[in-house]
């Protein structure tokens, strides 16, 4: 029998029992849909985590003074005063993999505006800081290098600070806030960034020129730390090496001596988080594929019942000239068609589910072509694998007793 006739016979047999066909398919539909949805949701969460990381600046490099140890007593992180203007200048010039550098000088002050006050950390940074940490301005402008040079009393504030101080809904731009006793003019408001991966509020922040903080607030000349950005995420290791080299030379550290600073890139964090989310995706897919196996067993079960129920039909087909092979292929064809149609419907449902989930969980909608192609093949294999035994049983029937079967 040729394949066209075979498929025709298989399809008409499936159509003869629409309800059962639909119910059998349901197992496969659920299996495939859950695999597709799980993989897609897993990948979407990977992407959104990665997105969050790069919103923190995945090419960001942190430069901190080394921990100091005085007479065996650890003085804590960033306790030395090894980073200063000299380093900033060296890192701004003559670098190849470093795109931008900004020092950070932190201070804590009570902010006062009218009757409202709010305590938060004030960061003295340079204009490049916004780009390095991927902050954006919602309104107003960022201070310039000129402001830095002149210790100008200007600042850029985050949304949380705006909400706390400007409770009447005034426009903060141009208003003057007192930082303790020092008045500063608000020239910009940052766009909201929300919580960081670690859970702290990234909008509860104030940026001012680092020179202003150094001279007017703290009276110091060193930096607490520095942020730099590599020219790209891939080049952050190179940039880190470059920074190490430059800082060692400006600090006059002899070869063999320890660095008096620490450099950290985001690379490690990114790869750790990627591997965790990757593992999660695999796990979800594995759980979902259990339901696919259950669906496959459902097909096998129904095919067995079908074969028994259609014993007479099998006997008749044999009597009118079907070869054993024709019978086997017919039932195999039925189970494969069953699982393939179920698979296609499952893929569609899976995509719908992952679309809805991405909308609800506020994640990107990711279509995994790999998962679709793979599940299509898995469907075909399921059909063959679970259809094989019932088909064989059908093909091995004796036509005489099959015809007599009641």
């Amino acid at each position, binding site marked *: 029998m040729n394949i066209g006739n075979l498929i025709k016979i298989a399809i008409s047999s499936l159509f003869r029992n629409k309800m059962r066909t639909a119910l059998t398919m349901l197992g496969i539909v659920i299996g495939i849909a859950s695999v597709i949805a799980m993989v897609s949701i897993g990948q979407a969460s990977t992407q959104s985590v990665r997105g969050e990381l790069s919103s923190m600046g995945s090419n960001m490099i942190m430069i901190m003074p080394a921990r100091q140890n005085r007479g065996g007593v650890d003085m804590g992180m960033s306790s030395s005063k090894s980073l200063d203007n000299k380093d900033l200048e060296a890192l701004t010039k003559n670098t190849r993999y470093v795109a931008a550098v900004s020092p950070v000088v932190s201070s804590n002050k009570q902010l006062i505006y009218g009757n409202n006050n709010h305590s938060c950390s004030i960061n003295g940074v340079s204009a490049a800081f916004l780009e390095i940490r991927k902050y954006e301005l919602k309104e107003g402008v960022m201070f310039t290098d000129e402001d830095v040079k002149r210790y100008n009393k200007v600042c850029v504030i985050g949304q949380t600070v705006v909400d706390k101080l400007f409770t009447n809904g005034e426009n903060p731009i141009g208003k003057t806030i007192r930082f303790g006793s020092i008045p500063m003019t608000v020239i910009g408001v940052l766009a909201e960034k929300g919580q960081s991966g670690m859970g702290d509020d990234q909008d509860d922040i104030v940026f001012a020129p680092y020179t202003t903080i150094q001279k007017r607030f703290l009276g110091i000349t060193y930096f607490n730390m520095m942020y730099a950005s590599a020219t790209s995420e891939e080049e952050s290791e190179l940039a880190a090496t470059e920074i190490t080299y430059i800082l060692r030379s400006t600090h006059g550290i002899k070869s063999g001596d320890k660095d008096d600073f620490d450099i950290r890139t985001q690379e490690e964090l990114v790869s750790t988080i990627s591997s965790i989310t990757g593992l999660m995706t695999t796990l979800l897919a594995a759980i979902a594929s259990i339901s696919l196996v259950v669906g496959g067993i459902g097909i096998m079960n129904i095919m067995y019942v079908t074969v028994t129920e259609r014993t007479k039909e099998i*006997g008749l087909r044999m009597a009118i000239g079907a070869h054993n092979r024709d019978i086997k292929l017919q039932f195999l064809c039925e189970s494969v068609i069953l699982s393939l149609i179920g698979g296609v419907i499952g893929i569609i449902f899976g995509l719908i589910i992952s679309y809805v989930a991405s909308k609800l969980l506020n994640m990107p909608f990711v279509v995994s072509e790999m998962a679709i192609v793979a599940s299509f093949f898995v469907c075909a294999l399921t059909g063959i694998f679970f259809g094989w035994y019932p088909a064989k049983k059908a093909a091995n029937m004796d036509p*005489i007793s099959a*015809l007599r079967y009641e």
Partner: protein
Amino acid sequence: MAKDILKVEKLERIFRVGSEDVHALRGISFSITEGEFVSIMGTSGSGKSTLLNILGCLDTPSAGDYIIDGVSIKDLSKNELSTLRNRKIGFVFQNYNLLARTTAIENVELPLFYNNSVPAKERRERAEAALKLVGLENRMEHMPNQLSGGQQQRVAIARALVNDPVILLADEATGNLDTRTSYEIMSLFQDLHSQGKTIAFVTHEPDIATFTTRKIKLRDGQIIEDAPIDTQSAAEALAALNLQKED
């Protein structure tokens, strides 16, 4: 002389039931020539079903030979037997054996699906012609459950005819039908016979056998009678039945 359509020689069939051998057929020899309408009679256990299975190439003899249309089935494989059934034999069963939820025409087409040399278009045409031959040209798209018993048996006969077999094998083809419908079906068989079809008709009803041209009677696996008979017309019997009803 008309040629032999089938010929059996010293046919034996032994079944093994437990540790005992059961001789269903004990050396049967006869032949059926082209254009004969043979009834094979016998009580249950006489071996007529076993004989029919062998004649239909569904079973093979334990000993002896069976030649159908010049082909000895002794050394044929299962697949070759299947092909032989497909090309040379038309089966009509007692319980019709139509596929449920499948139209009459699709049921009739079925044997041709297993014959690759028949293209789809010809398959349809031949099935239509066969249905016309049994007088069901207006019921082609009906499902079996929309047809009466007699009509279902006609569909089955059309299915047996569609591959243009050398012999029609009917197994108690009127067993599930009332007298009147039985006569109608026998009348159809007689029509087919008059058109030159060769028919072997297994039955245990003596009155049905009178519509055939030759009677072979079996008992305990042996032929006890093989003779031409005085053929009655089924059409006349039907007319007589109708008269009786009017009285």
